[in-house]
């Protein structure tokens, strides 16, 4: 036991006799500040750790797979049942074939938002977040590493699912002929993928801010997904001004090639959505640093 501990790093613990005696004699007046600032671990180590934590929990893969499946499956169903003569789809908004193929996003964005909340709030409920903060020292690095891992994972899975939805949706599309420019379709694919990444990050930020899975999911669903529908009940004069700045509405503008007077322009939508994500992550970072963990 003893040997196993010492052989790995013989330089680290000082020999018992020397250290205890020399320190005992010097502590009486001034503490010996012999602290050696060990070199910092590169941020990549913290990111690797978060990557391992993210993917070593079975529910992560299942959840991302479910989100991808929902995107593709619902997209194909909506595309396949589109009617050829009428402006297709269950709602007038969903008349564009690409929009139809991405009809499943409404479900998968919720799944991904919840995943973001749970990735963070789950560590608060087990207490693991304290271990992470103490082991890394600087809390901001933990937040940034979690955000990086979440972004990369959602981007990868999201891009694959969204692209598959668009391609497979076109393959089974039964509606009236419509053509789209390739660049417009690519804009939609990237916009949708980045929206999913942003929703995951908003979920993570809420996890840090509220430190509770239930609170985080409740706020996410209520504030981002259901809240905007309630605002629709307010007078148009009111909603016309504010609605389009909500994350979900900015996201809607990022996810379509159809221009809609109720929504922001694509460029403005990216700016507003980014502001939401960065703002919430910034608030999370500020709170986490000044609060007791």
């Amino acid at each position, binding site marked *: 036991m003893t040997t196993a501990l010492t052989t790995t790093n013989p330089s680290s613990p000082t020999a*018992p006799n020397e250290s*205890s005696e020399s320190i005992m004699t010097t502590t009486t007046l001034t503490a010996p500040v012999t*602290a050696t600032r060990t*070199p910092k671990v590169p941020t990549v180590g913290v990111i690797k*750790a978060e990557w*391992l934590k993210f993917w070593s929990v079975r529910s992560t893969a299942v959840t991302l797979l479910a989100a991808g499946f929902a995107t593709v499956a619902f997209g194909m169903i909506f595309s396949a049942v589109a009617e050829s003569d009428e402006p297709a789809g269950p709602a007038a908004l969903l008349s564009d074939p690409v929009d139809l193929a991405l009809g499943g996003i409404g479900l998968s964005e919720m799944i991904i938002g919840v995943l973001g909340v749970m990735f963070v709030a789950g560590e608060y409920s087990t*207490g*693991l977040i304290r271990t992470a903060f103490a*082991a890394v020292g600087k809390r901001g690095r933990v937040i940034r590493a979690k955000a990086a891992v979440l972004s990369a994972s959602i981007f990868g899975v999201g891009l694959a699912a969204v692209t598959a939805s668009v391609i497979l949706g076109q393959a089974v599309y039964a509606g009236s002929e419509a053509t789209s420019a390739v660049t417009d379709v690519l804009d939609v694919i990237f916009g949708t993928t980045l929206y999913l990444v942003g929703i995951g990050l908003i979920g993570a930020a809420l996890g840090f801010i509220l430190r509770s899975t239930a609170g985080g999911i409740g706020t996410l669903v209520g504030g981002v997904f259901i809240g905007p529908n309630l605002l629709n009940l307010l007078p148009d004069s009111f909603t016309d001004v504010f609605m389009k700045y909500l994350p979900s509405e900015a996201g809607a503008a990022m996810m379509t090639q159809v221009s809609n007077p109720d929504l922001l322009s694509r460029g403005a939508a990216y700016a507003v959505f980014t502001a939401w994500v960065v703002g919430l992550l910034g608030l999370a970072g500020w709170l986490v640093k000044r609060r007791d963990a």
Partner: protein
Amino acid sequence: MIEVTNLTKQYGETLAVDNLTFTVRPGIVTGFLGPNGSGKSTTMRMILGLDSPTSGTATVNGLPLADHGRPLTSLGFLLDAGAVHPTRSAHDHLRALALTNGLPTSRVDEVLDIVGLGEVGKRRSGGFSLGMGQRLGIAAALLGNPDVIMLDEPVNGLDPEGILWIRHLLQNLADEGRTVFVSSHLMSEMELMAEHFVIIGQGRLIKDISADELRAMAVGEKTQVRAEQLDDLVGLMRGDGIEIVSGDRETVSVRGLTSGEIGRIAQTNNIALTSLIPEQRSLEDVFMSLTHDTVQYQGGSRMEAAA
């Protein structure tokens, strides 16, 4: 070495930690004792940089822990053995922790072997028993091969064999020159383990004392005396500051005289002593009486036990 200086933590009106100052030295196991709610965990969280002190400082090897580049190589800690994701394997749990401090994966296998979890490292940690969970927590504390090891209630949930194992482990770590700081609310757990004690109650330092000094305190103030001519002896022993309480007909309990003094009184007056027993208290008793006034939630039986 851990140095805590005038450390204070206030939550609203309550002082959880009240101007604590103590030093945990290398080379020995130091027990951190106090009743439940006395501020042990809060103090440890401040040492870890998780809670920020209202005032005062806590340093590890001269620096706040968060300022160490690789904190786990300076201080290994066990705060809450339940702080694992139940579906993650013990090996993955430790590997993630190792990555944050740039430690090699081979070190994960080493510490799993040290704590006896080598066989089950790949299993979900959610299926672990309480004792296995504690061992995993201790493995995490050893991961960075740190100079300072700080464990909050590590004995919780361990069986007698496990307690023996951890006592030897901590002793070995201390013998290697490391600083070992272990909290408990039970003196019985600590008295065979620690060479030095930091005892707190209601957030305040009660005693910063070596085990030997504490044992000296356990030698009671009272002496049980039996003698053939007990009434005569009692008469001779009376004096200022001396308290004599009679037990059964042939025994009295004397406070204020040592057993040696009583023996001499008996000898010079030709009284035959039947027995002369200095009262020996358990360390648990000493601890209880030290912290008695500070126990927050006191039950009736507990008061009697401490009295």
